[in-house]
């Protein structure tokens, strides 16, 4: 609306500034963008560039200084088995987390769309997402504990042996992925639910008239038309998932463990970065691993948007 009105206002703006080398719309846009731009430069761009610089130094966090070491950190990065081990764990977590979360979220969203419009139910589904990550992790540490946890107490009623969700090397990543699925599925469902609202009702009516079943409508109408929204949701959740940190840190550290444990079975890439920066006091190397992570995130995002053709809709 404003963009169509803007040309008419150009003369007035010209009189205000005395020059109009830029299109008037750009000028006003600049002023509107300025606050966000200042934030972006101060809190994203500058730290990112400084991080890039620090990745070429042997920065000592405690002393807060470092000197240029060229590509030493990058040489170390490619020979550091732990980095690739951490990435493997991170990908494993992401696959489990995204698969379970997305399937559940689509199911919930379709149920919300087809069965109920209750705001209360939508609110309840969002509740886990509103609880801070650290609280969620602590909650589950207590509930899933092998000795004292209520979940194992319950399993015991069925004669099952206690399951050590966080302290069994094979179960820790699925357990963490499960917690974050529980926390995020309501929110993801809401995003998908919003996407469902863009699908014209007439398509379902037409399909119903032609005798299509719910299952067929879901497969042939809902999923294809949901693709642009799903692409966006997947990009957001996968990028978030690859950056998992707080849940792992709190749930595996617990009250007696080692964050990333047991035996490094849950040391995701962010935790390894944290260890290098804050435990080993090697901020330079931590920055180098961060640069690698940024490169991976950019690649994943780019590929996803391309492969899922996020810009196009099948509606047209």
């Amino acid at each position, binding site marked *: 609306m404003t963009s169509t009105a803007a040309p008419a206002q150009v003369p007035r703006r010209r009189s205000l500034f005395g020059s109009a080398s830029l299109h008037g719309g750009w000028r006003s846009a600049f002023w509107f963008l300025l606050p966000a731009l200042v934030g972006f430069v101060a809190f994203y761009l500058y730290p990112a560039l400084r991080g890039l610089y620090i990745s070429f130094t042997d920065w000592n966090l405690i002393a807060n200084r470092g000197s240029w070491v060229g590509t030493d950190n990058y040489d170390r990065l490619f020979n550091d088995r732990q980095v690739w081990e951490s990435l493997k764990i991170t990908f494993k977590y992401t696959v489990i987390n995204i698969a379970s979360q997305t399937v559940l979220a689509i199911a919930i969203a379709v149920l919300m769309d087809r069965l109920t419009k209750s705001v209360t139910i939508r609110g309840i589904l969002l509740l886990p997402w509103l609880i801070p990550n650290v609280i969620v992790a602590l909650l589950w540490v207590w509930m899933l504990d092998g*000795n004292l946890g209520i979940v194992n107490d319950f399993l015991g009623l069925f004669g099952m042996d206690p399951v050590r969700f966080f302290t069994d090397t094979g179960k820790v990543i699925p357990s963490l992925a499960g917690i974050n699925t529980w926390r995020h599925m309501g929110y993801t469902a809401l995003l998908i639910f919003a996407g469902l609202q863009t699908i014209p009702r007439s398509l379902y009516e037409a399909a119903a008239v032609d005798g299509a079943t719910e299952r067929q409508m879901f497969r042939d109408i809902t999923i294809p038309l949901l693709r642009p929204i799903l692409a966006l949701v997947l990009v957001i959740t996968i990028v978030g998932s690859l950056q998992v940190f707080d849940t792992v840190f709190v749930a595996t550290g617990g*009250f*007696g463990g080692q964050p990333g444990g047991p035996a490094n079975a849950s040391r995701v890439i962010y935790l390894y970065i944290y260890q290098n920066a804050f435990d080993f*006091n090697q901020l330079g190397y931590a920055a180098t691993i961060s640069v690698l992570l940024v490169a991976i995130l950019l690649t994943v995002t780019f590929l996803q948007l391309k492969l899922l053709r996020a810009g196009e809709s099948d509606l047209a």
Partner: protein
Amino acid sequence: MNKALWRLLAVLFAFSIVAAACGSDDGDDADDAPAATQASSSDDGDDMSDDMAEAVSIEYWLWDGNQQPYYEQCAADFEAANSGIDIEITQFGWGDYWTNVTAGFASGSGPDVFTDHLARYPEFVASDVLVPLNDFVERDNVDTSIYFPGLAELWVDNHGNRYGLPKDFDTIALVMNSAHIADAGVTADDFAAAEWNPDDGGSFGELIRKLSVDANGNSGDSPDFDPSNVEVYGLGLEGNFGAFGQTTFSAFAGSTGFEFLDVNPFGDSANYDDPRLAATIDWFARMIEAGYVVPIEDVESLGGTTVFQNGSAAVMADGSWKIGTYTGADTPFDVEFAPLPAGPSGSRASMFNGLADSINKNSEHPEEAWLWVKHLASPACQNIIGEGAVVFPAIPSAAEIAIAAHEGNGVDVTAFTVHVDDGTTFLFPITDSASQVEAIVGPAMQEILRGQADAAERLAQVAGEVNAVLGS
């Protein structure tokens, strides 16, 4: 409507121009300001220095909330004697504490004085963020021989610089669930007389077998004992083994004659490939499998203290700083303490750790900070800490007060102090890369105790990685 919208935008825009103009006016003022502010600040300055003379604020950090009230008392006495200095005490939990201290150093702020730990201070020294106390100590003729032998020297680096004055010490002993040991017909004296070795566990091994009980009520020395369904484990574990096992394996490994470092403090080579260490860790792994020692999986999440307080372990090794935890309301049963068992070397071995107060190089008032450190390390303050009966102060006479205060509460703590009296302690290993060593050894210990790796093989591998870090 469009017109109205544009009018609104124009007003907003005009407003922002005016605001910007005002802003730049301010800027000009600021540029012109130095003369003016200098003039006024010289007045302020006098006031300020008067104010300063009245109250220099020294920020002091510690992590143990149980000790805070007694340090508040020390601070009150100190402020009464030094009217120009105001002590502000802040407490953070152990995890947050080190994050905040590190952030304080990095940002050029942080506390003036803080409670320092042997596992951390070498990294601070390497980063040059602590004030060496040598000149202060010399100038004020502070006698560093009034502490338990060895405590003061822990804080001197290999260049002879002193970075802290001792405040307290801790040792390790066994804490026992009185009901459990009575049920098994075992007494604290049995433990005090026990011997341990990594092959068959010695008489100590027999005691913990006897104390283990499965769900059917069979004790560990019965042939019917079911290790997969244990109700009470003979021996609990305070937590993760980590690299130094202060409250877990260190006492047992130490009693074989094992030493962590070639030189302590500041060794550049560690002995993780020592067969005596491998035998010790292997003993734990075998006992976990046999159901006599609590599985490491069960203590990694909520911690071994919770497992012990839950009644799932009969006996556990822990540090003297936890005495209050076991004798207080958090532990719903009576406990007794016993010294650690003697090992193949013929004697007991408790890790001996001491804390000290260090001064941050960023402090704007090093002189006042030093006065506070001096007071904290003096008998006047340490006697107060002793009365609190939370930790053992570093000065022997003050430690006596703590022991007497514990006795007054009906708690016999000689199990902890006997290690000092008999000289059966060894110093906490001090290296300048403790956290990296921890990150290498910790996961390996977790694998061994889960039966996923062979102790000797895995520790030999660890030794190579650790020495690569220490030697660099």
